[in-house]
């Protein structure tokens, strides 16, 4: 930003000075015009047109410092000024004004060819514009050098000037039509009206004198019409420059500063480039290593015609590695060096973006993989618990039943009865052990009802007084979240009983706005650390994998609170 400011600081005072000088000149012209031997409206009208050209030139230069359009408009302003000065009745000024009488038409042709960059592009344009200047300066000479009585020669001179001038306009029209036909639609909407007005103005100004005279108009009407058409030219170009977003607004180094500041994405980089280089059709493409082709920001392949003339294609490299490209309209941006400079800035941004997206992608992949591991572990727990419930637990009931039936059979000797009863009792003990194991793997209440019911059962069986407050609707919670929350609460309660020497503990479950908040708070000795128990460490990993937050608040001597937030779809 500072770089840009320095350049603007250098340019803007100069433009202000220029505007002041032009203002003074305009004032002088008006003052002299007031005492000149012509009707006052003539110098006044010329001064007004001159003022319009000057203002347009200054504004265009100010707003688009990298475009030559502003300078050309100011050259036009000088031409208008000189033309107007011929009416002031001062012999020297009249001579000069005669020399430059049609110069403004050449400037307009120049503007048409050079728009929007302000620079001529291609030998055809250069030749045409040079010829235009020749027509208005050299072919004008016979008109003021030949004596007034050589009317035949003068007619020949006028004919030659008109013919060559007409040729210049035909060439210009051909050139502009070619440009329009190959321009991008968004550029056409600005270019077309501008071109039409420019060509009509250049043709009408000289022709209108004869046509209007034939229609019987007097000199005032003719002069007034010409001046109005002339005044429209700078307005049209100024609007074109500003509306079209053409021409650089900032230097590439200013762009780099901008890139450094902004957390720029691909789309915003392309936009910034288009704006600062002055081509709305500019596209940024990315090199895809795996596809071996250029892709756009959305990952779609860039079509071949985007890389073929009239589009130009500037590849962008980072340390000789291809990272992307800038596709632009070669007719809009005539200075490839500016694009190359922008490309070097873009290279950094593209590479940063590429690395960022690679990092994000791998991070996402890692996160998903962790989530899958958690879910796989939960599935495995579920499967084990179900297998035990449907298999071994049933088997133990049937075994115990068989043992008891042996014990109860009438013909069994007392020793058999006693042994079978003892066996049944031992099977019951094994079943109780298995029940505890199944409960630890995946509690029935969690499967059957959900988190609150399971936590309630957990709290019920705790050795110390425990309070449960829950507003969670069990059936609206997804299994992974519910299981994780349960395991966290279970671990928190185990720690409270085993390590905290707590006398009571409070469990809170709350759900709001897609977040499940749970807290296990005891009144024990505190000082617990996540690193102390593998249980808590494992849970932090689980919470992390689910994208939740884990907090252990345990000041020494002031109890321990385990606070966890888990995202849950609402």
């Amino acid at each position, binding site marked *: 930003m500072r770089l840009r400011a320095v350049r603007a600081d250098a340019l803007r005072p100069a433009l202000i000075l220029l505007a002041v000088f032009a203002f003074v000149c305009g004032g002088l012209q008006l003052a002299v015009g007031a005492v000149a031997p012509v009707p006052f409206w003539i110098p006044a009208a010329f001064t007004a047109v001159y003022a319009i050209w000057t203002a347009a030139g200054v504004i265009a230069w100010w707003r688009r410092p990298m475009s030559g359009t502003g300078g050309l408009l100011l050259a036009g302003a000088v031409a208008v000024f000189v033309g107007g000065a011929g009416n002031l009745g001062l012999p020297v000024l009249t001579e000069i004004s005669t020399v430059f009488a049609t110069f403004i038409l050449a400037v307009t042709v120049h503007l048409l060819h050079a728009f929007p960059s302000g620079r001529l592009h291609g030998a055809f344009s250069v030749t045409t514009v040079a010829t235009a200047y020749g027509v208005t300066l050299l072919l004008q000479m016979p008109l003021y050098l030949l004596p007034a009585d050589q009317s035949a020669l003068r007619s020949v001179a006028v004919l030659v000037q008109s013919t060559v001038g007409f040729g210049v306009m035909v060439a210009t029209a051909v050139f502009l039509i070619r440009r329009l036909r190959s321009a991008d639609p968004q550029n056409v909407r600005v270019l077309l009206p501008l071109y039409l007005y420019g060509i009509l103005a250049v043709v009408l100004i000289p022709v209108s004198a004869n046509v209007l005279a034939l229609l019987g108009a007097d000199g005032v009407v003719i002069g007034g019409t010409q001046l109005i058409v002339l005044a429209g030219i700078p307005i049209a170009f100024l609007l074109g420059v500003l509306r079209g977003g053409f021409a650089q607004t900032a230097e590439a180094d200013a762009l780099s500063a901008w890139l450094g500041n902004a957390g720029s994405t691909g789309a915003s980089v392309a936009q910034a480039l288009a704006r600062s280089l002055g081509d709305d059709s500019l596209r940024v493409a990315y090199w895809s290593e795996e596809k071996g082709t250029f892709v756009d920001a959305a990952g779609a392949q860039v079509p071949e015609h985007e890389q073929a003339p009239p589009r130009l294609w500037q590849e962008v490299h980072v340390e000789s590695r291809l990272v992307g490209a800038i596709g632009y309209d070669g007719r809009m941006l005539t200075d490839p060096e500016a694009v190359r400079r922008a490309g070097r800035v873009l290279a950094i941004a593209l590479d940063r973006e590429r690395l960022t997206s690679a990092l994000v992608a791998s991070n996402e992949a890692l996160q998903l993989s962790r989530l899958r591991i958690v879910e796989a572990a939960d599935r495995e727990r579920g499967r084990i618990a179900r297998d035990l419930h449907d298999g071994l637990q*049933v088997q133990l009931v049937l075994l115990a*039943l068989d043992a*008891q039936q042996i014990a109860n059979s009438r013909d069994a000797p007392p020793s058999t009865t006693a042994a079978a009863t003892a066996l049944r009792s031992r099977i*019951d003990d094994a079943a109780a052990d298995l029940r505890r194991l199944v409960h630890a793997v995946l509690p029935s209440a969690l499967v059957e009802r959900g988190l609150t*019911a399971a936590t309630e*059962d957990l*709290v019920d069986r705790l050795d110390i007084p425990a*309070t449960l407050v829950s507003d969670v609707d069990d059936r609206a919670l997804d299994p992974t979240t519910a299981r994780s929350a349960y395991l966290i609460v279970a671990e928190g309660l185990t720690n409270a009983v085993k390590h905290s020497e707590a006398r009571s503990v409070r469990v809170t479950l709350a759900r709001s706005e897609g977040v499940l908040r749970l807290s296990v708070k005891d009144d024990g000795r505190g000082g617990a650390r996540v690193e102390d128990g593998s249980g808590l460490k494992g849970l932090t990993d689980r919470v992390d994998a689910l994208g939740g937050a884990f907090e252990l608040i345990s000041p020494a001597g002031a109890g321990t609170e385990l606070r966890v937030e888990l995202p849950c779809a609402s």
Partner: protein
Amino acid sequence: MRVVIGEDEVLLREGLVHLLENEGIEVVAAVGTAVELEVEVARLEPDLVVTDIRMPPTHTDEGLLAALRIRRSHPGVAVMVLSQHVQRRYATELLEPRDGGVGYLLKQRIADVRTFTEDLRRVQAGGTALDPDVVAVLVSRASKTRGPVGDLTPRQLEVLGLMAEGRSNAHIAARLGTSEKAVVQHTSKIYDTFGLPVAADDHRRVLAVIRYLAAAGTAGTAGAPGTAAPAAGSQ
């Protein structure tokens, strides 16, 4: 006694049918889903339903929900719920709709055939049968509060537990190896301590005790107003 059985494990269902028929109990239907269970109950109006909790299609708590609906819609049908794990919440839900005629036991209790059939008959007669496991939860919860449960002697606590399981005084006396008279003394002391009115009906006395225990525990965990004390050690 006519019984309908709901159990999705085929071996266990057949084992149950076999066991009950051996004990002279008529099994009029044995089905594998909660939906079939309710259909059969409506059709056959049995004296007793014996059902699992987890059954198809969701394998969650459809057996329990069916049992609760049967208790509400068929007052004459007693319900025995069996499960691999017992918890307080289900016990209180089962005791809610109406007095007695309900049992809630671990499946493993089936193996002690004599006690199990005794439980079934008591439930069918309007009594209750709560698993010792869930009674232990109730008593331990109640004793964690500063209420009168903490004032009971160990022997009184034993009697209290057996009462809550739904046992008769005779059974408690036999189990503890003491006289029925001694048991009556203990139970009177328990009623006094809890401030419960002495009801003539055995079943009602048992229910009063269970509800007292459930409420006392609730006071401890939820901090309901107007109860004896907050959770011990919270100060």
